[in-house]
């Protein structure tokens, strides 16, 4: 379970935070650090893309989790927007964008067309930009451009 929830960045951040707090403030053990936006994460973002069952013809899965900073509680009903350069369109095209909501476990999952390498890397874009929490833009890389899924995880802090 923790494997699913943790990104490398999250693991390093929360791990080092936990290490630091365990020395200084032993009482505050729960310290899930907020996810920071990645460089280039907001590129070609189109605010307000509609919530969809699937982007285009599908065949590729984007998934992840949304949790609250501090206690790490899953956040339900959070709107995550997803876009990428795919077999069906460029990043800038409206048809390459779609949004979905997290379930009670804070998980989201949206089918979309196959992501193909663009601007030198096979990558996707995700955004949390609903206002209640601070905005976060992610730009995860695929290990291989042949992968048919990609995941990214959000830990949000209040705006």
């Amino acid at each position, binding site marked *: 379970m923790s494997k699913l929830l943790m990104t490398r960045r999250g693991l390093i951040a929360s791990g080092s935070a936990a290490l630091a707090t365990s020395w200084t403030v032993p009482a505050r053990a729960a310290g899930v650090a907020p996810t920071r936006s*990645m*460089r*280039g*994460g*907001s*590129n*070609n973002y189109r605010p307000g893309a509609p919530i969809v069952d699937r982007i285009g013809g599908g065949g590729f899965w984007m998934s992840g989790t949304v949790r609250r900073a501090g206690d790490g509680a899953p956040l339900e009903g959070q709107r995550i927007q997803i876009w990428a*350069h*795919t*077999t*069906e369109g*460029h*990043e*800038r095209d409206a048809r390459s964008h779609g949004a979905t909501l997290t379930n009670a476990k804070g998980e989201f999952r949206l089918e979309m067309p196959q992501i*193909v*390498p*663009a*601007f*030198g*890397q*096979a990558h996707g874009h995700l955004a949390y930009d609903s206002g209640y929490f601070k905005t976060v833009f992610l*730009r995860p890389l695929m290990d291989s*451009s042949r992968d048919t899924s990609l995941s990214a995880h959000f830990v949000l802090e209040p705006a």
Partner: protein
Amino acid sequence: MNRLHHALIWAGFLAVIGVPLVLAATSPLLAWRQPIYVAAGFAGVLGMAVLLAQPLLVTGVLPGLSGLKGRRAHRWVGGLLVGLIVVHVVGLWITSPPDMIDALTFTSPTPFSPWGVIAMWAIFGAAGLAIYRARMRLPIWRIAHSALVVIVVIGSVVHAMLIEGTMEIVSKAAVSAIVLIVTGLTIAKRRAWAPFMPKRTRR
């Protein structure tokens, strides 16, 4: 040198430039790109391959383009390279403005971007120097031009090798290695630093 010899040199030269282009033209990625993005990519591929022409024209290795003719061709090809870089950058800018702005401001998440941007400025510098050649002291001009060329070639090769794009990997590595070796040999042969070495500066 006989005609066959000349033909073989040219055939080899054109193969090194042509094979990466032909293989890039078969890339599956092209099907999912708009024409402007395809053109921008190919300007980069062609620029990478055409880098090979420059040292060969300086040393006059290409039959029919030695001496003054080679120098003149070197200037034309230098201008062509600047044009290809402009097409590459403008085309990518039109394709995805924020990605190109990130690259040019050195804030891109992609590790190959700064290498490409540094190579671009170095190529503009090397070409700019060419315009002022007559007004500069030759030893200074030569060492400055050579230094910029080294940055251009290393920057371009690293830039190309780190990209997952339309270029086929073996031909990309091969053309990169050949450009590096030929440029290195030419720089070593030209010894632009010689006038600045202690023994050579004193008369």
